[in-house]
């Protein structure tokens, strides 16, 4: 660990906090349909889209209609995406002549991109045509992110409205975040990346002869355009197999800085936007504060564990931190930051291989995923996820101060608690359920690359990543097989929409309630105590769920390492 390393981490953390407010203010304006500087150029496109789709933007939906629209839209996206992947061979922009994906891989990939997971059982440059990348993947990168972000609009309305039956219009919310936020930001970022050396072409792959005389095929493609939304939309599905560790996806420290920033920028800014939309910006900052505590702790632990290095290597006379699976041009601090951001934010892109981390260093991304992808989580999904935790926290805290629990002026009653528990339950059910089966199923064990606890962690990580809609992999697991493709796909679907539906039910229920005025007996939710309480509840709830499972993986591996045991 060096001062330089800590400074790099501090700068990255400061950067993402600094941009949260301006971005948040802008997004709040867009989501509330207020006029912004983009209004003149984008508004005509927006209205044109509504008239083409036959959407009446003034007609609001109940929570059920809203969630039905959302599910229908995503189902259609899945069918389209699946069709593209299966028919890839007949479609244009396929210079390498890639054939159709298998049923299970196409299912897994389509689900993966629709659910904003972007788990990749395939290697992009060896499997997908440019058409599949651009029309299939990139489109889903936009709309899956927009789906998550759209939900923040009714979420804010649930608290700002009283006795309301409607929560907004899904089509309007979806269109607005796509047109005003995701598209413009992605275009700016893509051009910035191109300027910094990321390729953007539709060329054939280039064959080269290396200095050693070996033949090497260098993949090409429209990288920059997909890269921008992959980071901003917390998608994480790399253009190339090794994701942002690839020199074309992430050539320098400058692109690395932009890409790291983009992982958490929107998710953090959404917290501010949420606060503004409910008319109490401080409430948004309190949620942001909780997110930052976890990011800070994650960066610090990962950096500490990786910089401490591997005692076995030290014994062999190789000093220094653990550089296995890390890019020399980024080093340990930037790898630790990325690993923390990408798993804290349900992004899943990587600039280093998590599977090569030290046991405790690898524990950080795993835990960040398992605590529910809420710090800050995926765009939208992280925020509504943390609000679910806030509901549980405030339910218990409300009782402890002797009042019927409330959060942001809305009473929390049986229905909210029921739906919040459903949303919280679904992740451990799928992560632990599928992991337990895979841990004994021969067909699943066949996919492991490592014996001992590391192999076990590969399984646990894969299902955590899928269920958390993260998409990063603890490299080593050969996932492109019917068992993993199918079960991971199911976990992604269940944990995306199995959370969205109860969250929307909470939104509907809260919106219909009267708003309570805060009094001296109300526990304030914009202060340090609330931040500490919420952080504590997140740790305790997910810690209690996953502690036994983690004890058998990274934790025991750590103790085994200390005891000098290898596999």
């Amino acid at each position, binding site marked *: 660990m060096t001062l330089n390393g800590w400074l790099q981490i501090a700068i990255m953390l400061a950067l993402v906090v600094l941009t949260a407010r301006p971005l948040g203010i802008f997004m709040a304006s867009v989501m509330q349909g207020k006029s912004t500087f983009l209004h003149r150029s984008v508004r005509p496109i927006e209205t044109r889209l509504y008239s083409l789709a036959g959407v009446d933007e003034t007609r609001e939906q109940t929570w059920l209609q809203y969630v039905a629209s959302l599910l229908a839209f995503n189902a259609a996206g899945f069918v389209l995406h699946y069709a593209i992947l299966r028919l890839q061979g007949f479609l244009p922009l396929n210079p390498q002549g890639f054939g159709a994906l298998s049923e299970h891989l196409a299912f897994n990939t389509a689900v993966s991109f629709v659910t904003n997971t972007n788990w990749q059982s395939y290697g992009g440059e060896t499997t997908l045509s440019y058409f599949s990348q651009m029309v299939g993947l990139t489109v889903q990168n936009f709309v899956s992110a927009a789906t998550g972000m759209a939900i923040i609009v009714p979420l804010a309305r649930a608290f700002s409205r009283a006795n309301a039956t409607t929560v907004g219009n899904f089509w309007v919310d979806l269109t607005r975040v796509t047109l005003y936020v995701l598209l413009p930001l992605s275009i700016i970022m893509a051009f910035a990346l191109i300027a910094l050396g990321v390729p953007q072409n539709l060329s054939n792959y280039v064959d080269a002869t290396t200095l050693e005389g070996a033949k090497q095929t260098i993949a090409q493609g429209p990288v920059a355009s997909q890269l921008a939304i992959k980071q901003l939309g917390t998608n994480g599905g790399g253009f190339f197999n090794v994701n942002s560790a690839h020199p074309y996806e992430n050539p320098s420290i400058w692109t690395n800085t932009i890409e790291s920033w983009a992982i958490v920028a929107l998710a953090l800014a959404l917290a501010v936007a949420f606060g503004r939309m409910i008319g109490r910006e401080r409430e948004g900052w309190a949620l942001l504060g909780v997110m930052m505590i976890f990011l800070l702790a994650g960066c610090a632990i990962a950096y500490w564990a990786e910089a401490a290095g591997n005692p076995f290597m030290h014994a062999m006379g190789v000093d220094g931190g653990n550089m296995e699976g890390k890019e020399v041009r980024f080093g340990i601090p930037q790898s630790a930051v990325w690993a923390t951001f990408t798993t804290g934010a349900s992004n899943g892109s990587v600039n280093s291989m998590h599977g090569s981390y030290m046991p405790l260093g690898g524990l950080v991304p795993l835990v960040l995923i398992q605590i529910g992808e809420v710090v800050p989580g995926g765009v939208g999904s992280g925020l509504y996820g943390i609000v679910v935790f806030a509901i549980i926290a405030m339910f218990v805290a409300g009782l402890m101060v002797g009042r019927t629990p409330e959060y942001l002026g809305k009473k929390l009653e049986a229905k909210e608690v029921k739906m919040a528990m459903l949303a919280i339950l679904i992740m451990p059910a799928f992560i632990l359920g599928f992991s337990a089966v895979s841990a004994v199923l021969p067909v699943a064990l066949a996919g492991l690359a490592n014996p001992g606890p590391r192999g076990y962690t590969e399984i646990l990580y894969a299902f955590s990543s899928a269920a958390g809609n993260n998409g990063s992999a603890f490299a080593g697991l050969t996932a492109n097989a019917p068992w993993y493709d199918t079960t991971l796909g199911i976990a992604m679907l269940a944990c995306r929409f199995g959370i969205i539906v109860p969250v929307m039910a909470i939104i509907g229920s809260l919106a219909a309630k009267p708003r309570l005025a805060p009094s001296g007996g109300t526990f304030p939710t914009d202060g340090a105590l609330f931040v500490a309480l919420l952080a504590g509840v997140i740790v305790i709830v997910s810690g209690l769920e996953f502690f036994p499972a983690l004890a*058998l993986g990274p934790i025991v591996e750590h103790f085994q390492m200390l005891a000098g045991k290898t596999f």
Partner: protein
Amino acid sequence: MVRNTYKSASLDKSLLLRAVVDAVRKLDPRLLIKNPVIFVTAVVSALVTTLFARDLLTGQPAAFSGQIAAWLWFTVLFANFAEAVAEGRGRAQAESLRKTRTESSARRLPDPKNRDRQETVSALDLRPGDTVLVVAGEIIPGDGEIIEGVASVNEAAVTGESAPVIREAGGDRSAVTGGTTVLSDWIVVRITSSPGSSFLDRMIALVEGAERQKTPNEIALNILLAGMTIVFLIAVVTLTGLGAYSGTNIAVTVLVALLVTLIPTTIGGLLSAIGIAGMDRLLRFNVLAMSGRAVEAAGDVDTLLLDKTGTITFGNRLATEIIAVPGVSEREAAEAALLASLADGTPEGRSIVMLAQEKYGLAPPTAVPQGSFIEFSATTRLSGIDLETRKLRKGAVDAVVKFAGAKQAVAEPTAFRAAVDRIARAGGTPLGLVDGDRLLGVIHLKDVVKPDIKERFAQLRRMGIKTVMITGDNPVTAAAIASEAGVDDFVAEATPEDKLRYIRNEQAQGRLIAMCGDGTNDAPALAQADVAVAMQSGTQAAREAGNMVDLDSNPTKLIEVVEIGKQLLMTRGSLTTFSIANDVAKYFAIIPALFVASLPELGALNVMGLATPESAILSAVIFNALIIVALIPLALKGVAYRPIGAAALLRRNLLVYGLGGLAAPFIGIKLVDLAVSGLHLV
């Protein structure tokens, strides 16, 4: 103020004995299923018992599974026991109530106008609308409204207060309660309740907990606990597969032990005891809540509406000072006031006599002075005394001035008028004092605010509750009293409609309102308020409209009601936190024990240094069972409420029950482990 009529039956031997029996009786699955956490515990206890039996039959070592099974059953029994103890306390009260509910006969009047035609029927045959005659010495056969007559009634059966109260037709004192006794005179009562649903019946049912419905917060908490139970079920069941990866075969007994120690059995076991004890505490304050929902709502109250008279002030205006005009000594004026009030039996008159004696040191006349007393009349608005040479009068200022002027036209002294104005501005009532044609001074009559009330309002403010005074006084008077009593707001010249409007307005702004009332004209406002405490002495209409009845008819008791409501919720929240925080230590006890064979490195997690894997697991289970018993007193007594603001309160409770819940089991399990290994139990 508060008489503990229903002395909570202390935890005496017979009560505990009965609770033990009830705890076993409550093993009935139909009763257990109401509590998901304990039900799960019972199911897995049965499972481990079967395994124990199998071990016994196959001759395998059964000591471990036997002890685990026993302690699991103890966990269930302790939870049942907690509930039974709480119920037992209520039952003791119900029995004392039931004694008074004897089957009596009634004199029904077929024609309410004709009291001579009576027919004797059983009280059980009375229906709402029937009229009955009740004479001295008889028990009133049912709840009702007096339509004719006036009587003194002993309501000790309901209120525990043996001093008789006057009940009369018309007005706000017309309601009578079945089971109470007429001491003198007679009354004609129109029955308003059906047999079995009278006030007393409802009271018995409430006290016994027979009608206990789960309250909204309790339902929500139960869902949370059920959710946590499912989370741990998943975590424990999947552990078989996850453990198998590293070659660990985990025994079912051990898995069950892990499950039961993780699921929130502590709060699950104490939840219903907390609810019952909350109602019981309220009852000990002589407040009868019609539902648990009302008690919970009391904890949420934001605004408290209080009638001025009788609640904030004593209800009678009292003399506080005597101001003499220039040329008259204070002592002379005081003496005149004393003489003029000697025969005045009204509270105001008596307070003048008191003031003259205490403040001005006048001795009460040894003999009644010779002269004729002038009674107060509505036309003269004066009273006083005619002595040989003096004509002393006191009364309304204009009447006094007129009295003086009628004899001799004198200019009203400016000092007199100034004193009158000053008193009026301060919200008091000026009373002129005159001797013949000579104006002597002004008596300041004041609505005296109860001495401890300001402190109580300050306490409410610290609890975050706004107090609002409702009064029929004019705004000037109201403002003066409001500032003296320290209320946050007041409604002057209030009509019943004003009250209703104020409540609706506050509710529209998202506040919860509590009020108390006794009159029929309070009924609409009581019905509108979220927490409405009706006075037992009030009318039937008021009592029907309220969701609580104060048997002592003491309006300031709302403060205690609010505190009890808060306590109820706080106890649940704090024990939930405690229960969940406990799990951390249990993991550190059981996880290393589970995998010590296949993954010995996990022994590093055994931070408590527990002796053997078996003793670690058994100790965790024993601790988990014993903590329920240890917390029963807290569940019954409730977590203390302090009006220190929500954030400070939460910080405090998190510190005690959160951090305490984290630390306690580390110590507790270690101690149990020392005992278990010391006794070689496993």
